[in-house]
């Protein structure tokens, strides 16, 4: 180190402040541990930015929301990069990990104490903190249309719970406040004495044999001057940067065994749908069509003007007329569980890791089918014009045109994205397939733990926030009970 470093001493260092890190911080701080949380992104007052807006995307997402997993086709992904992580930008939909997956993972990866009953007990506690519930009153029209289309086709749909808090007596779905980490677990942790360092990026962990002795960080200074080096010395380190940043940091620190491979995500294909009536644009639909779940799920996305513009641009076709009518449009998606997997690799000299993902032919076929199912659903719901996220479209207006999409969805024309990234470390006793033990302790280290979406051994097929927070609570309490 050429510059002089500020040194911070703490008992527990938590790297990252998203669903995993914030939960860990709150639990450990309330148990009396001395906790320091470092977060690469800035603190942004959760009330300062309009939810689900393009401004939110620019300020709270990494790379302004434009990262991509390379492959054929590439998959664009979005990660939060601010205090609260992706919980500040996600839809706030809440799904417990399906029981059958808990059982399957426990068996396949040999995870201790991972029964559905055990997990449910943790999930209930997290839900009591997060104001989990259904929207009061009628759901917004953009969401109700999913239910309406599904009912016409006889498809199963559900209204998902969300982490939104409503004032007593409010029956307007749009007037809830999303219970992000910046509103819940971070304030809890701080109230219990944790300190939070935003805009502080961990360059690498310093190790001595099987112990991590500290973290070398670079923190932005308030006056915009040169970044300051900070060394955090800690007895215990929890890495909670999410499924991309966690393995990248571990690799930068020389920890590579079973780290970064096996990345899973939910590849998603979209349709911008035009209806003959006005639609709401302030919230994300809470209905999901689960007829084809868990391998294929249909739902709705953020649909402000900017999002509709982005979705329309995906086809590369002329869409001026549709964009001018954006108030009658909304964006919907089909997401799949993928058989393929990806890799995160830290590249020396580059700040961002290289992320690759390989979709199988079965995955591509599932995406094509998802687009056809979604098209059929939206037409049944009354849509008059469907713009798929496929180069060259075509735009579809009636059911007998859907067949064309099967062959159009291929590796060169499909614009895919995801907001769910998991499984780049994986937990379990099976060392041939996991980077951490049943409670997130990195194999062969004494005081290094991972506690975020990287631990899920596979994609959950549902929004992962509930599973991430549930497992984070479980692992944090296991840590507290350890000698």
């Amino acid at each position, binding site marked *: 180190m050429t510059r002089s470093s500020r040194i911070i001493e703490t008992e527990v260092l938590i790297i990252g402040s998203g669903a995993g890190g914030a939960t860990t911080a709150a639990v450990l701080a309330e148990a009396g541990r001395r906790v320091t949380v470092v977060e690469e992104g800035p603190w942004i007052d959760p009330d300062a930015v309009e939810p689900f807006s393009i401004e939110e995307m620019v300020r709270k997402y990494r790379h302004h929301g434009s990262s991509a997993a390379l492959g054929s086709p590439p998959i664009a992904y979005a990660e939060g990069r601010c205090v609260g992580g992706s919980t500040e930008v996600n839809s706030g939909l809440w799904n417990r990990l399906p029981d059958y997956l808990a059982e399957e993972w426990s068996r396949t990866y040999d995870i201790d104490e991972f029964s559905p009953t055990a997990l449910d007990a943790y999930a209930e506690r997290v839900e009591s903190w997060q104001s989990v519930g259904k929207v009061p009153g009628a759901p917004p029209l953009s969401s109700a249309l999913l239910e309406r289309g599904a009912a016409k*086709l*006889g498809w199963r749909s559900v209204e998902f719970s969300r982490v939104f808090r409503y004032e007593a007596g409010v029956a307007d779905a749009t007037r809830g406040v999303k219970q992000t980490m910046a509103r819940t677990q971070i304030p809890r942790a701080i109230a219990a004495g944790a300190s939070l360092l935003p805009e502080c990026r961990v360059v690498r962990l310093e190790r001595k044999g099987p112990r991590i002795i500290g973290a070398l960080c670079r923190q932005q200074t308030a006056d915009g001057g040169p970044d300051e080096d900070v060394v955090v010395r800690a007895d215990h380190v929890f890495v909670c940067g999410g499924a991309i940043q966690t393995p990248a940091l571990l690799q930068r620190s020389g920890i590579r065994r079973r780290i970064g491979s096996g990345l899973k995500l939910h590849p998603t294909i979209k349709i911008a749908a035009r209806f003959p009536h006005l639609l709401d644009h302030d919230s994300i639909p809470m209905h999901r069509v689960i007829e084809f779940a868990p391998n294929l799920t249909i739902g709705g996305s953020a649909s402000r003007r900017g999002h509709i513009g982005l979705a329309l641009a995906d086809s590369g076709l002329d869409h001026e007329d549709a964009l001018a009518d954006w108030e009658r449009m909304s964006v919907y998606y089909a997401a799949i569980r993928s058989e393929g997997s990806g890799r995160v690799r830290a590249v020396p000299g580059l700040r961002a890791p290289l992320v690759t993902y390989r979709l199988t032919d079965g995955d591509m076929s599932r995406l*094509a089918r998802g687009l056809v199912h979604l098209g059929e659903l939206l037409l049944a719901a009354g849509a008059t014009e469907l713009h798929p996220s496929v180069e060259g479209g075509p735009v579809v207006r009636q059911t*007998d045109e859907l067949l064309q999409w099967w062959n159009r969805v291929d590796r060169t024309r499909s614009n895919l994205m995801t907001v769910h990234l998991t499984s780049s470390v994986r937990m379990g006793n099976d060392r041939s397939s996991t980077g951490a033990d049943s409670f997130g302790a990195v194999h062969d280290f004494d005081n290094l733990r991972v506690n975020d979406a990287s631990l899920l051994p596979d994609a959950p097929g549902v929004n992962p926030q509930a599973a991430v927070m549930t497992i984070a609570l479980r692992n944090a309490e296991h840590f507290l009970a350890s000698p």
Partner: protein
Amino acid sequence: MNTDLGSAPDVTPPDRVVVTGASGWLGQNLVRALAPSRAQVRCLVPDATAVPLLEIAGPSVDVVVGDVRDPDILDRLFSDTASATVFHAAAVIHPASKRTRELYDVNVGGTQLVLDRARRAGAGRFLHVSSNSPFGANPTADDRFTEDSPFAPYLAYGQSKLEAEELVRRATERGDVEGVILRPPWFYGPFQPARQTQWLATIRRGRFPLVGDGSQRRSMVFTGNLVHGLLRAEVAAAAPGRAYWIADAEPHRLDEVFATVRRALAAEGLAVSGGQPRLPRLAGLVAATADSALQSTGRYVQALHVLGELKDTIACDISRARSEIGYDPPTTLFDGIRASVRWCLERGQSL
């Protein structure tokens, strides 16, 4: 429970049926068996050229031309088919596109769309034609697959057929359809595709290679036996929610299969070469490895695929179909191959 149901009386077969893949090898045989006794045999075929050959099977035959992946076509196929039995035989085994993606689109995607329409139409039993491929190859020549054998799908086709089975099982478990899964191995019989005619002709000329020592066992199924199995599964009280191997009575050694083909050709008056070229088992392994490598990049080469599988034992035990649904295959390999040879000769195909 199923043994009790095995002796329970049959249900009455509905007078309306839907057949997907009706112009295929099995479909042509099945439609001919159904047409005389049913009021309506609604058929899905991918290509209009197949329509005349199906329509001559009888006035009850009503053909819809279109793609099994097309929601609009399936609406037409399933219009007014409440309580009809669905025979889902549409599938791709050797993709014309030479791309493995087609296997998933048609075998998985097509099955999901057909299941969905069957449920919406309030159709009756859903007879799903699967394959041996979700199970791969037997570990030894004396092993026999039962319905409880573990899945070990063989390459993309096996994977696609396994995923299709899973869709049918799930739809049945949640009460969307009354599914029955039928697993036939290698077919033979009338309406065979050109590749099978070529197989018979190459054996006749003494040019079809025997891979390995010929002791590997193969279960085969005469199309007539398979139709019998499907019709039993349509009415047997025990069938819903179950899966059955449907094959000829016993598997054969592969060298016996080839010898039987030669005898059947001779019995139909054709001169047969006594030659039998042999390839070491290694050739089959090499082909299987090359096939697997190509399929991992999405490409499919039929000759490699066939050669790669010839080394293996793929043999099943039909006891469950016998006891639960009263399946009793009437035709032997010798008689069935003779019928195939006659069918070729009647159509002026050279063997």
